[in-house]
């Protein structure tokens, strides 16, 4: 088990090392602009190409390529949970964050922003059957949905038409429209690009009235990274002047009056929008069964890659949990008083606090103390240290279930306490704890999906990204579920086998001595 853990750890460490170096010179030396975004967010920002799930596309993907070209380097996207993009840029996980991030006063406290590259108005969307609705006032007292912590959310709060409980804030941009179609909401207010890509193609949904308000999208950089900030501003200026920025937005059907004002280019737009057309075509086709299966086949490589990360992470974290758990259990049962108290405190503290909080503290909290761990290492430590507390309790129970007479027999043969523990008690305790430890491992496989919050792209994250790109939560979900089940099955089998294997010598254990 130890060796597997080590190999897996080595793999995880080499898989991604946090790059803590700052600044423009470092970026140039590396030859790459590393930019953070979340592909699960969906179209049109950065998303999995509906035609090819192994490729990412989006207007920000294209913009990053243009900016990188201006800086004389290549663009390299780093996947990161959306609501943690600013923390990650401050951790040094990438140079900039660019993913529909709206400039707000709160965010200005933690990062520096470039000049805005896009202005997004807010678009109200309702069900097509509610054609009488032309503005927010027509929805007074109804239930409305939007994205968490967005300009739209502030507008919905500010107009005084809705009770606090009737404003539903979502993490993802696809779900509000789903709920609108299902009648769980009566209106959705979100940034225009989202409405254009996620609502416009929907037959049952309609735009209600013209867009209004202005959300300024800008690129976030670390405070104090002045050289990079001004280089990016100059690049944006150049792209605006040459018309390349406008052409980009037109290709994606995102050009609007507010952005025209921002870029100082009021000429009416008649240009075609090939990227948008191709997107509509890709998602518009209602595929037949054969086509659908063929499409699912193309989902397999990314899902399998995610499953591999899930498996490696779970196995290595479990190895850590088991090793540390035995140590904690032994310390708690046989250690000197201070050690016993320490082990007990660890177990109670870890079991009494949410895993999510522990992960955030390790990943985003430790950097404040100067310790910057890469995502895989943080995930491995977070899960392993957390599960160690539960394993410790398993082993404690297992050790206590071994009759006292066993230790006495070992001691009477001249063994020391540790020898008795190692050669007589622990081997028996191991057999007792096989079932609960296997159960824990299978829970860990599933719990490991939580590490998506610290930028790990494992099975659930891959599922989320694919499902968002194709608006197919059921089919892709079934695939992901089957993979989880397939990952856990061999271990459940192994546990059953080993229980039977060791049953012969368990039958005659004295009930109590």
């Amino acid at each position, binding site marked *: 088990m130890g060796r597997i853990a080590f190999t897996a750890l080595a793999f995880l460490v080499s898989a991604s090392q946090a790059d803590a170096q700052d600044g423009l010179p470092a970026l140039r030396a590396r030859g790459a602009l590393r930019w953070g975004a979340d592909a699960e967010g969906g179209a049109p920002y950065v998303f999995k190409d509906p035609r090819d799930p192994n490729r990412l596309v989006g207007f920000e993907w294209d913009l990053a390529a243009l900016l990188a070209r201006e800086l004389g380097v290549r663009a390299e996207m780093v996947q990161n949970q959306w609501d943690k993009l600013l923390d990650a840029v401050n951790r040094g996980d990438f140079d900039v964050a660019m993913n529909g991030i709206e400039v707000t006063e709160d965010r200005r406290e933690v990062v520096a922003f470039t000049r805005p590259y896009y202005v997004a108005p807010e678009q109200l969307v309702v069900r097509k059957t509610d054609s009488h609705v032309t503005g927010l006032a027509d929805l007074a007292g109804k239930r409305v949905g939007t994205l968490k912590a967005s300009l739209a959310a502030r507008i919905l709060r500010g107009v005084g038409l809705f009770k606090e409980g009737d404003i539903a804030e979502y993490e993802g941009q696809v779900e509000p429209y789903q709920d609108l179609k299902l009648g769980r909401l009566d209106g959705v207010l979100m940034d225009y690009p989202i409405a254009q890509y996620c609502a416009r193609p929907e037959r049952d949904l309609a735009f209600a009235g013209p867009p209004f308000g202005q959300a300024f999208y800008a690129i976030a950089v670390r405070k104090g990274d002045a050289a990079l900030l001004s280089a990016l501003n100059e690049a944006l200026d150049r792209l605006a002047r040459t018309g390349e920025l406008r052409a980009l937005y037109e290709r994606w059907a995102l050009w609007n009056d507010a952005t025209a004002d921002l870029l100082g280019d009021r000429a009416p737009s008649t240009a075609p929008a090939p990227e948008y057309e191709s997107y509509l075509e890709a998602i518009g086709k209602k595929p037949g069964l054969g086509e659908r299966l063929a499409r699912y086949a193309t989902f397999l490589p990314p899902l399998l890659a995610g499953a591999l990360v899930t498996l490696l992470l779970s196995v290595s974290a479990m190895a850590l949990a088991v090793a540390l758990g035995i140590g904690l259990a032994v310390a708690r049962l046989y250690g000197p008083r201070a050690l016993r108290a320490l082990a007990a405190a660890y177990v109670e503290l870890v079991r009494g606090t949410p895993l999510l909080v522990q992960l955030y503290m390790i990943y985003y909290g430790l950097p404040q103390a100067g310790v910057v761990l890469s995502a895989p290492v943080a995930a491995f430590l977070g899960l392993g240290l957390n599960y160690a507390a539960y394993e410790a309790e398993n082993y404690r129970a297992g050790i206590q279930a071994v*009759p006292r*007479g*066993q230790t*006495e*027999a*070992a*001691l*009477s*043969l*001249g*063994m*020391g306490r540790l*020898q008795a523990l190692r*050669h*007589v008690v622990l*081997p*028996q305790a191991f*057999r007792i704890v096989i079932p609960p430890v296997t159960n824990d491992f299978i829970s860990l496989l599933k719990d490991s999906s939580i590490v998506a919050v610290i930028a790990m792209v494992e099975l659930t994250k891959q599922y989320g990204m694919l499902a968002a790109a194709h608006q197919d939560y059921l089919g892709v979900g079934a695939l992901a579920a089957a993979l989880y089940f397939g990952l856990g099955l061999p271990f459940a089998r192994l546990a059953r086998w080993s229980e039977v294997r*060791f049953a*012969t*010598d*368990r*039958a*005659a*254990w*004295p009930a109590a*001595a």
Partner: protein
Amino acid sequence: MGRDVGANGAALLEVEGLRKSVGSQEILRGVSFDVPRGRLAVLLGPSGSGKSTLLRCVNGLETFDRGRVRVGEVVVETTPGNGAAAREAAVREVRRRTGMVFQQWNLFPHLTALGNVALAPRVVKGVPRAEADERAAALLRKVGLADKAGSFPSQLSGGQQQRVAIARALAMEPEVMLYDEPTSALDPALVAEVLGVMRALKDEGLTQVVVTHEMRFAREAADEVLFLAAGELAERAPAADFFANPRDPRAREFLGRAS
């Protein structure tokens, strides 16, 4: 009182003034006796008189409040000034020289009969595995279980398990064997095979202390009887004398009920 003495002029096992209380209850109230080398002493007494506690104190599985235990030249005592570490070392040395056999066998269920016998020599004495296994096989042969070396405890009868337990204790080459009701948990039909092994060991000259309720065995095999009552050594006599003419009234009552 005439004392048998060992080869070195003193008894091999000596217990002196042993006292132990748990809470306010006095379990042992100053017990003294000795057992010369090569003798078999039987420890008798009513239930709750402290027989098990006495054996466990000798073997260091329980601590005592007062007194001393000596095996050969190794002494465990409770006089002040005797540090805990030194005491612990002495206890381990005593355990190395004494073998203990329990009423419930306490075989290691995860090891075969051979594994049970070979474990302690390997772990404690560092005997290489091949040599330990070879000696374990010889000991199993000696207790009549040559063909059961590969069996797990759960696959053996009670009598066979108890014989494995004796072989396991013998593997450490003890000078004294202590038995706490070795046949009480056995079917009557299986008792004889275990007692037979103990008789054979006596013939080889091994020193043994046996707590038992098998009066016939005590009468036939014991050199000496130690009779314990309410934590005190009420009577100590050669076996023949004890059974023919018990002096202590409690011993008379005990024998009356037992026969």
